């Protein structure tokens, strides 16, 4: 007796005279729908997304469990993440325990800090304060209240803790940027703001020979300073 699998191929004359050929032909007709059922139905049933959407919440996913419809819960006021106690009030806010502006950077001001400061400044501050610190950023040009230029004498005199405090608590129309800027980043930005201020009032004799030559208007190969969109104010 041959198996059903082979018999599904009708070979005509070569099968002639074999006993039971008629019977297997009939069986073949019954096998077809069964095979179809076995072959296709699992595919259809298998099209569920349970593994795609497992019973757990992704960040900020919607949830019907909580009243406001969000799975991620807001932090309870006063929550302190491990390692973020913030005992050093001056470092965290720019104002010390007595409310006095911290006058000096709590870390070494080096190129790494300034680069980090520029990076954060360009992301979070430049939309309003402009990359040059003149307070004519794009959002201001689109109608936001113009902030004081960092080159204003009052701000040139300001100590770094003053800027850190404004970033931490906001000032006038400016919201607090504490959620976006970690304390160390606020100091980095403050350092960069001071670098921006210095860029407009650096004594010429502190410049390198190349730069001084460029200032004097001698034709040199010195690369042009990066011009910026808001640089004409």
């Amino acid at each position, binding site marked *: 007796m041959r198996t059903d699998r082979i018999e599904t191929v009708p070979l*005509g004359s070569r099968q002639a005279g074999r006993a039971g050929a008629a019977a297997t032909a009939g069986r073949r007709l019954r096998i077809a729908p069964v095979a179809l059922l076995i072959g296709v139905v699992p595919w259809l049933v298998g099209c569920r997304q349970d593994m795609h959407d497992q019973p757990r919440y992704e960040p900020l996913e919607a949830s019907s469990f909580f009243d406001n419809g969000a799975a991620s819960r807001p932090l309870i006021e006063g929550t302190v993440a491990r390692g973020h106690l913030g005992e050093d009030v001056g470092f965290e806010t720019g104002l010390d325990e007595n409310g006095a502006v911290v006058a000096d950077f709590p870390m070494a001001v080096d190129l790494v800090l300034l680069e980090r400061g520029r990076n954060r400044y360009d992301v979070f501050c430049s939309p309003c304060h402009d990359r040059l610190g003149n307070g004519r950023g794009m*959002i201001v040009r*689109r109608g936001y209240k113009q902030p004081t230029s960092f080159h204003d004498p009052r701000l040139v005199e300001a100590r770094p803790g003053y800027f850190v405090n404004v970033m931490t608590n906001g000032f006038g129309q400016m919201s607090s940027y504490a959620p976006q800027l970690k304390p160390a980043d606020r100091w980095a930005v403050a350092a960069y703001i001071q670098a921006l201020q210095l860029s407009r009032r650096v004594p010429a004799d502190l410049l390198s020979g190349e730069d001084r030559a460029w200032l004097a208007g001698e034709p040199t190969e010195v690369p042009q300073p990066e011009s910026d969109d808001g640089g004409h104010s």
Partner: protein
Amino acid sequence: MAQIFHRSTNTISRLSIFGGIFLVAGLIGLFAVLDRSSYNTGVGVVLAQPIPFSHDHHTAALGISCVYCHTSVEDSAFAGIPPTATCMNCHNLIWNQSPMLAAVRESYRTGEPIRWTRVHDLPDYVYFNHGIHVAKGIGCESCHGRVDLMPLIMKTESLQMEWCLDCHRQPESRVRPLSEIYTMGWRPEHADQGTRLIAEHDINSKVSCSTCHR
């Protein structure tokens, strides 16, 4: 016993064997095409959002960095959807009467979150971390497309496994300098830049199953 089938049916049987190959191949091909189609992947499909937020306007026209809103992209698995307070940093003064932003103001007043429709959603059995990709020099554009040209956000990549592997097998095709992560439309400056950046960023791209399915 008489023959059941006439000799002439041999042709049909041979044809059906021959045709069956094409049928099976065709079905497999059809599945492959359907699986990659935007009907299945959602590529190029704009999903309904509660507010018609334009990435095009906010990034290309205003020059706001991706990180201004997606603040956790550099050091977290999740890039972050900004809280309503971030919108209000500007929209407390700008367009603060616009009916289009009524839902934003409502959310800010009540603390009720805005219910955005998620566009880039990986299956839950995939582990993905934004932070490491950004740190190693994969730009936003490589996965999210020219967001700066999208008035309404949509997917430009399938996010299917073959697409992930395409880059994981040859990261030099996508890696960029760390200063260009958020740049849109960046092109390599020279042909072997990718290979050099692989060494520079110490990239050890993994393709084992457990890298993503952990």
